[in-house]
């Protein structure tokens, strides 16, 4: 099992979610986050007081997936969230030691 973490642009969330549902991903966790990478921040001006925010808002997806679909999930996210501009985000894949469904106590891939 793999744990996939993807940081994407917020306006791409619906598209990515739709694409992942279509390929059979059963669930994910979504969090609004802030961070920085290569993309420049933005400048806010309030009555002449300038604040440059180097932390930009992004959306973080967390998906637990079986080994066989992991590559396809990563591909789908990469293809869907891509705008070609800097700041499109990143995808990380981690090994997942275990998964347990709280309602039934099932564990392993059946719990995904």
């Amino acid at each position, binding site marked *: 099992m793999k744990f996939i973490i993807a940081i994407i642009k917020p306006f791409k969330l619906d598209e990515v979610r739709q694409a992942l549902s279509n390929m059979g991903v059963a669930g994910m966790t979504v969090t609004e986050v802030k961070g920085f990478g290569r993309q420049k921040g933005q400048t*806010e*001006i*309030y*009555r*002449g*007081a300038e*604040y440059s*925010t180097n932390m930009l808002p992004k959306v973080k997806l967390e998906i637990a997936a079986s080994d066989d679909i992991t590559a396809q999930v990563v591909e789908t996210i990469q293809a869907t969230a891509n705008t070609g501009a800097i700041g499109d985000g990143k995808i990380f894949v981690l090994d997942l030691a275990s998964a347990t469904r709280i309602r039934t106590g099932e564990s392993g891939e059946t719990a995904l």
Partner: protein
Amino acid sequence: MKRILCTTAALATGAVMLAFPALAAPVAEAAAEVAAPAAEAAPAVFTPTAEMVNKGDVAWMMVSTAFVLMMSVPALALFYGGLVRAKNMLSVLMQVLTIVCVAALVWFGWGYSMAFTSTGTPFPTIVGGLDKAFLANVNVGTFAATFSNGVYLPELVFVMFQMTFACITPALIVGAFAERIKFTSLIIFVVAWLTLAYFPIAHMVWYWAGPDFLHTAPTDMGLLWGWGALDFAGGTVVHINAGIAGLVGCLIVGPRIGYKTEPMPPHSLVMTMIGASLLWIGWFGFNAGSALESNAFAALAFINTFVATAAAGAAWAMIEQITHKKPSLLGAASGVVAGLVAITPAAGFAHPGTAIILGAVASAICYFFVTTVKNKLGYDDSLDVFGIHAVGGIVGAIGTGVVADPALGGQGWIDYTAPVAAAGEFDMVTQVVTQCWAVGVTVAWTSVVSAVLFLTLKYTLGLRPDAEAETNGLDISEHGERAYN
């Protein structure tokens, strides 16, 4: 009696007499009745009666009173509250609300008497005595003068209308040192400042005996009113007064922890927008209500409050469009307030065309002070009380001397020392000089009083919460609650 106002009475009186010929008769009768028993040589003693009260005026003035209260709570509270960080939201709302409550009680206690009487005092042109303290000698049978001969308001209406001005003025000050002031010290400051700065200045600018009395008591007036300074609705008394007190306050209190090193963006410009819009609406009561009658001069003040403000809001947005390519909501809202402040002293004097110019000019000058001068000098006037209220107030007060000129479509001034008020001869240069003197006296008086009060508090009770309390936010450290849960 936003008494400085000179222009209206002659025309207004004529209009009232024409429209309500019945009014003229009781006035004459009343005068005759009183005159009859008096010695032949003595001038008739004029006594206002209930017949000289117009119900339209009373209704308009009571609505205006409620409008001006709305300018403090919630309008000013929301306008300021939106501009601070979320951790200080409630502190600002609480400061404004409490100041309104306390100022209303102080006005009832001694404020009205100090501002609008001239008896029982060694300096009758500077400040009134205590003959009407706790509204002694004020009841449903006493009357306050308007700008027209023989037209009166129930005195209680005038007491309430003016009360709302005493409420909002000290509330304006808190924006200058928002996010870093000790609540109890602030409230003590407000009571003392009202007593030593606001009431005397209101008296000097607005007190006069009234059009039916001045010709028999030509010295019964406030100092600046007597000089001929024009201030329709409170440019000096309210805005310069509060703006300068705010500047002195922020200099003595010192900048916020992290000022210029960490971001302090407004936490909700939505609230600020709601506040600015309600301020504009309420300002119709503030300015048009200051005509004290429901007549054409109220309408003139009303339309000037409309168009000068519109010009100022649009001007600020245009300046930002040119300088940053992005016109901001906060900018437009700041322009709106700058325009409202600037038109306040001129509302009943200017032609709407010159009012528009005054609003736009004030907006540009305030923009310069808020964005450039403040950054250069480095003082932390958190919400720009000085940059908008004092600067806009000064531009408006001096500009009033220009736009009031009948040659520019203005209303000039009225000579109330004649038995029936008549237009006085207007000279723009003389008037502008007079306006500058009135500004100078107000600035000097309020600077000294504010500095003495703030320094006294600084070295006794303290003006600031400790650094930890300030960093945690005044909501939780001073008031034990949070705005958003």
